[in-house]
């Protein structure tokens, strides 16, 4: 085995060939430029470092130009994009730290470990900044349910998310799951984490202080996740078996120890800067820390705790082993830090120091193995101005054109038992949603998920809460990326408001196909434009995010999936609004009146379920109207007039209404607008539009005081419609047209996922 070790290191130090560079993911032009700027040919280790730093994931080379356009400022913003996570001020000395990140590709290869390490990774981004993680969300996309692989992936991903989150003890409080054939060979696993920190105790990654020690803590470095293409290369060695990329395995137990030990050390003042080792491991963490501080870094690779004896410098620098941290400490405080990490049984090693030469200098076996100017890795990283073409589907579909000759009841049942609408209980019951004791509601009970700010309660005051919502309707984004993205932000805001909270800021995860294709780049450009527009209008700046490109298989892209993660604050958790109505409540629609006698079925769930194609113009977006409605909701909630609320989105009015009635098994005689009372065969389509249309800017509320609300609405020029009063009979009557049981709907709704999962 000795010869292999020498071989490995020997090859790491050889001049890199163009062919090898390409295998690592660099383009010929990029490699040429590197050689030119460096005035020499880099060795294999150095080239590996370039390839990692120039990768789409680290350099954002396709999107940087556009991401700059996002609004990132606001009085609530403490830290915008550019750090491990965004930070916002929630009053007092409290701050919220949050970010979303994808782990799509690894989850397809090994669903359990891929999803688990995705959760572990985003949690480290949060506690790196000094915050205790208080909630997790997850946004999942799978292929069609008839695809046998889907079941396997769903099982594995859900178990993996739970496996990590449950064990480390952070509640998973909500998320989204959607199935579509475009994800058959490219699932999406996006995990979002939220942490709570003290405003005056935020930690950053910017290196400071020449001569200060660089510390490695956490798990040992193994061969996990080293770039496959490179390592499979026969040219590196004849021993190919040893070079295969290895699956990253999450160890939530070590993750928990790392979390507690870091938070314990953060109570002292000896950490100057800290950065987790995420994508591209030691490479990106060390380069980013040093370059942010405009300093240099020296590392002795012999000091890195390794799992296997014969690791080369290339492997050490590119390993993506989990549960590792890099920190810079005050000189002389190494022992104090070491004591804490030893207490938690974690590896601790002083691996180098901060220098002033603005270089990354690596040494192994007393030899320099890498000597690169940081500027070349960061500031001079490629930035592309890719061609793009924005495509919208402008074909306006009238309900007359697509309505199906089935009864409302038949269609409603189809929607209820559809996996994209039906209950996700099978998923969320596998997640510990109540650990930490601060969960107020999950998004199955309210429109957003709410966790209490720990210890914010005093005497008779119950405390304040953080509201979180994740949203993305890819049907809309595909048919109109800009409007779709605008609506994703809007829907998130509506959800937060329908829980009684106030939206504050946004994180986003841009999941798209190959940006080298004009249409895909067009989706990205228009999406960012849409996010910008809504976020500016709502004053919810974007403070963090992630981009995941090349989500394609055999040239076929996934549906564009720009996921929005929004957080808000509710000043008193006793004022949280839930979804479920009670008996004898009046249900009102805010934003719709008696004049409305049809609805928008283009790009709707109705269309998706009843037709194989789903296109057409997306529903009209009216930001002003949206804001008027949510502001009105907030105002009447302040007067304690609301018992329950639910926004009308996927599926339209009737399915949304049913979700309000399920919990208490309520019935209702639905009032229809006069214009819909006496339809015949030629115009019955209007009723379909009315029940299932996805017109925006509408919210359902349950109240005991409809008169007061209607008066107020009239005064404010807000449309309102009285749908009727709930009763205990569990039967829904829709005028003379239809009647059906709430219980039956509920059973279909609950059976949606178990049905496809049964063997």
């Amino acid at each position, binding site marked *: 085995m000795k010869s292999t070790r020498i071989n490995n290191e020997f090859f790491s130090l050889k001049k890199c060939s163009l062919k090898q560079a390409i295998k690592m993911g660099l383009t010929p032009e990029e490699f040429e430029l590197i050689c030119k700027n460096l005035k020499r040919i880099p060795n294999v280790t150095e080239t590996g470092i370039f390839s990692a730093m120039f990768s789409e994931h680290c350099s954002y080379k396709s999107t940087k130009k556009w991401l700059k356009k996002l609004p990132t400022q606001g009085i609530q913003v403490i830290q915008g994009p550019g750090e491990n996570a965004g930070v916002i001020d929630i009053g007092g000395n409290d701050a919220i730290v949050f970010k979303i990140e994808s782990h799509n590709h690894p989850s397809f290869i090994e669903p359990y470990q891929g999803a688990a390490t995705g959760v572990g990774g985003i949690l480290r981004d949060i506690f790196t900044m000094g915050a205790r993680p208080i909630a997790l969300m997850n946004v999942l996309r799978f292929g069609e349910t008839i695809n046998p692989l889907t079941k396997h992936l769903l099982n594995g991903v859900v178990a993996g998310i739970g496996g990590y989150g449950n064990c480390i003890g952070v509640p998973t409080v909500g998320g989204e799951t959607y199935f579509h054939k475009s994800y058959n060979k490219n699932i999406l696993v996006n995990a979002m984490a939220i942490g709570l920190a003290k405003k005056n105790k935020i930690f950053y990654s910017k290196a400071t202080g020449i001569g200060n020690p660089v510390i490695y803590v956490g798990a040992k470095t*193994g061969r*996990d996740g080293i770039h496959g293409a490179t390592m499979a290369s026969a040219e590196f060695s004849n021993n190919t078996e040893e070079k*295969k990329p290895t*699956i990253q*395995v999450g160890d939530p137990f070590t993750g928990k120890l790392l979390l507690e030990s870091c938070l314990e050390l953060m109570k002292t003042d000896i950490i100057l800067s800290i950065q987790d080792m995420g994508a591209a491991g030691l490479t990106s963490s060390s380069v980013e820390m040093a370059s942010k501080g405009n300093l240099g870094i020296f590392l002795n690779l012999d000091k890195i705790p390794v*799992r296997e004896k014969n690791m080369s410098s290339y492997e050490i620098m590119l390993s993506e*082993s989990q549960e590792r941290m890099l920190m810079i400490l005050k000189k002389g405080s190494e022992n104090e830090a070491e004591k804490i990490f030893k207490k938690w049984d974690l590896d601790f090693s002083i691996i180098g120091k901060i220098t002033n030469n603005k270089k990354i200098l690596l040494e192994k076996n007393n030899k320099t193995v890498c000597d690169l100017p940081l500027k070349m890795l960061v500031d001079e990283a490629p930035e592309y101005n890719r061609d793009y073409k924005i495509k919208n589907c402008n074909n306006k579909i009238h309900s007359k054109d697509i309505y199906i000759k089935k009864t409302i009841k038949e269609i409603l049942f189809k929607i209820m038992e559809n996996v994209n609408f039906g209950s996700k209980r099978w998923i969320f019951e596998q997640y510990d949603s109540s650990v930490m004791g601060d969960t107020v509601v999950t998004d199955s009970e309210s429109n957003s998920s709410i966790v209490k700010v720990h210890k914010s309660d005093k005497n008779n005051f119950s405390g304040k809460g953080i509201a979180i919502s994740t949203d993305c309707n890819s049907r809309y984004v595909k048919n109109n990326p800009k409007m779709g993205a605008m609506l994703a932000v809007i829907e998130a805001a509506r959800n937060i408001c329908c829980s009684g909270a106030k939206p504050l800021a946004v994180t986003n995860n841009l999941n798209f196909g190959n940006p080298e294709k004009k249409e895909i780049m067009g989706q990205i450009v228009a999406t960012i434009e849409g996010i910008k527009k809504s976020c500016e209008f709502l004053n919810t700046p974007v403070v963090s995010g992630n981009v995941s490109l090349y989500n394609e298989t055999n040239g076929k892209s996934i549906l564009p999936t720009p996921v929005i993660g929004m957080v808000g604050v509710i000043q008193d958790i006793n004022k949280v609004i839930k979804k479920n109505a009670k008996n004898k409540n009046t249900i009102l629609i805010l934003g719709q009146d008696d004049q409305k006698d049809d609805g928008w079925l283009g790009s709707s769930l109705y269309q998706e379920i009843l037709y194989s194609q789903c296109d057409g113009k997306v529903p009209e977006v009216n930001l002003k109207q949206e804001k008027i409605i949510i502001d009105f909701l907030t105002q009447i909630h302040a007067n304690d007039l609301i018992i329950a609320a639910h926004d009308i989105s996927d599926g339209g009015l009737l399915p949304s209404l049913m979700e309000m009635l399920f919990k208490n098994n309520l019935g209702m005689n639905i009032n229809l607008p006069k214009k819909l009372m006496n339809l015949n065969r030629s115009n019955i389509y209007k009723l379909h539009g009315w029940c299932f249309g996805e017109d925006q800017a509408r919210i359902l509320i349950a109240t005991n005081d409809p008169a007061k609300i209607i008066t107020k609405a009239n005064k404010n020029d807000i449309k309102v419609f009285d749908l009727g009063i709930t009763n205990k009979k569990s039967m829904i009557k829709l005028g003379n047209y239809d009647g059906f049981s709430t219980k039956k709907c509920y059973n279909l709704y609950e059976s949606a996922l178990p049905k496809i999962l049964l063997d």
Partner: protein
Amino acid sequence: MKVLINIFPKKEILDPEAKAIKKSLNNLGFNKINDLEKGKQILISIDENDEKNAFKYAEEMCNKLLVNSTIEDHEIIVLKDR
């Protein structure tokens, strides 16, 4: 006939459980341990009298369900005498 299927995580893949068990044994004073691996074992009694067929049957079950070949290695032992 019975087949015994031994499944171990691939050598190069981190096995946090094996790590934790080894450490705990060390803490209990077992200091002679050089290395510890943890695997699963599945013992299946099948309606089959031919050794070769039993092996093939087991191999098929491994491929179809029992083994996750991206992270696990396995071996099949046909127990003739049982």
